[in-house]
């Protein structure tokens, strides 16, 4: 029984994928670069770190590249894209009545466990994303569409890593 408050169903995955593919193509066509999220996280982190330890940001080569000396880590195209991603997700969530304060988790774990693992998973995920020079969107999607050898290798590595631990982590999800 669908009431007015109930969330609308999700889009067919193939249709959603086509939509995502068109957005990805437009990104290449207009800017010459693909989509991404993890690079922006790095810029934001550098920006925050600069408030507390500007000297440190200047000294560490990896950080200085984004926000050393006169460079503004916030004024990055990736950060603009990240803000757009948040707004796009929010807009779609509102329209489809899916924007509500809640925690999504597997049936056998507590909310606290889920949140702990979400945080820890975020740490691992972002660390791996920086190591691989891109996340699922920046490497797998964008590099995959322009047929980069490394991106396709990366994609298989992500699935391999995931399936390798899935069985041990099954209590989290099923």
């Amino acid at each position, binding site marked *: 029984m669908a009431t007015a408050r109930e969330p609308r169903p999700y889009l067919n995955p193939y249709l959603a994928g086509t939509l995502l593919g068109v957005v990805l193509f437009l990104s290449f066509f207009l*800017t010459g670069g693909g989509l*991404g999220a993890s690079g922006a996280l790095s810029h934001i982190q550098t920006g925050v770190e600069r408030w507390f330890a500007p000297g440190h940001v200047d000294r560490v080569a990896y950080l200085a590249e984004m926000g050393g000396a006169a460079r503004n880590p916030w004024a990055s195209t990736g950060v603009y894209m990240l803000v757009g991603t948040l707004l796009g997700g929010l807009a779609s969530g509102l329209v489809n009545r899916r924007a509500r304060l809640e925690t999504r988790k597997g049936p056998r774990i507590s909310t606290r466990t889920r949140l702990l693992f979400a945080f820890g998973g975020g740490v691992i995920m972002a660390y791996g994303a920086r190591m691989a020079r891109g996340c699922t969107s920046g490497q797998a999607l964008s590099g995959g*569409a*322009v047929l980069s050898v490394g991106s396709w290798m990366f994609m298989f590595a992500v699935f391999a890593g995931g399936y390798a631990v899935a069985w041990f982590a099954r209590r989290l999800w099923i």
Partner: protein
Amino acid sequence: MAPFDVSGLSTLGSALVFGGIGFGFGAALELAGFGDTRKLAAQFYLRELTVLKVMFTAIVVAAVLVAGAVSFGLLDMSRVWVNPTFVWSELAGGLVMGVGFVLGGFCPGTSLVAAATFKVDGMLFVLGGLVGVWLFGETVGAFEPFWLSGDLGRLTIQDWLGVSTGAVVLGVVALALLAFWGAEWLERRFGGGTAPAPAIGRGRRLRLTAAAALAVAGMVLAVRGEPTAEQRWAWAPHPVHQLLAGRGAFVSPAEVVALRKDTALSVQVLDLREEHAWNLFHVGGARRVDATALSESPELRSLLEAPASTITFLVDDGEARSTAAWRWLASRGAKNVYVVEGGITRWLDLYPAPACVAEKGAGEGAGWRFAYATGEALPSSWPELERSRSFRLPCATASLEDEGEHRWPEHPFTKKVKLQVRSVVKGGCG
């Protein structure tokens, strides 16, 4: 021709363009259901393969559109960012991410959408992500050689396999259709019918039509192939045509010599003549390149990716082969490439070889005839060096003031070389 040079945009313009693309990205992820961690994690328990379906569809659709736009001359692939391949760090990073994916239930992009729709787990994941990138920045110094290992640069599957782009796209389409068929089967087998029914586009006919459309597009690309040299030249922007017509790309040997003195620049001379002509005489430090090799992958790639301070000069006996090669390179988007005006003949007119070694042939436009092979042993090969004690000459000549020392007159020239900096395009994760 696209892509547009976004480096010239104002902050507001840049924010609008990239923010707009991000908006579409976020909306598409949310519509696919990627704000819900259970939908993502289900991929790893084969209950629901939405992740595979959405990602692979997106990749295939974008790959077909990108390759199509390139094939029809709408998009200049040399200016599109292709993620560089670093074999080991990408494999290791991918494995680590796979673990993080299963434990945390998101990837960075999807966690943003989850956080934006007020999912608390999504917000925690984003926070964890900020800590993760911080940790990486602090620790990468400890294993930097590993992080930089296996660097193959910009390497596409078609370059790697040596096949056409269309063939690879067709292969990717076939792989995707096979994966979709397999995913449907797995969902029926393991999903137990628990997957929520999507609202639109359920019809079997619609699916088959879409699959057929993709396959046809892949085949068209495979048959159509890459644009020919003539097509590329016709699509090249007006200023490039102007460089050829207005002879802006033809640089006097005297300017080449002046630039060779500039230690801030890396000047390379590519000699397109046959080997025997090369052996008789060539410009000092030049590299002999077969004209056909220039159109092939390693040479072309090294020219397209040359650092901004590199200037490349193409040289022939006259200008025929160098002009043809220039046209090809310019239409592929190579920057800072020029033709040596008048070729080796003009070079030797300005910096003549000793009369006992070579003499100019009779008649207009005739080349120089050498008595024996000199390679780059003559001072004429190195006019920028004022003192070259190591030259051992077979005969005393008037062009040498005294032993081991020579000076050429300062030949006047019109300055034509303008160093162009390629706009740097980087992916969102860069």
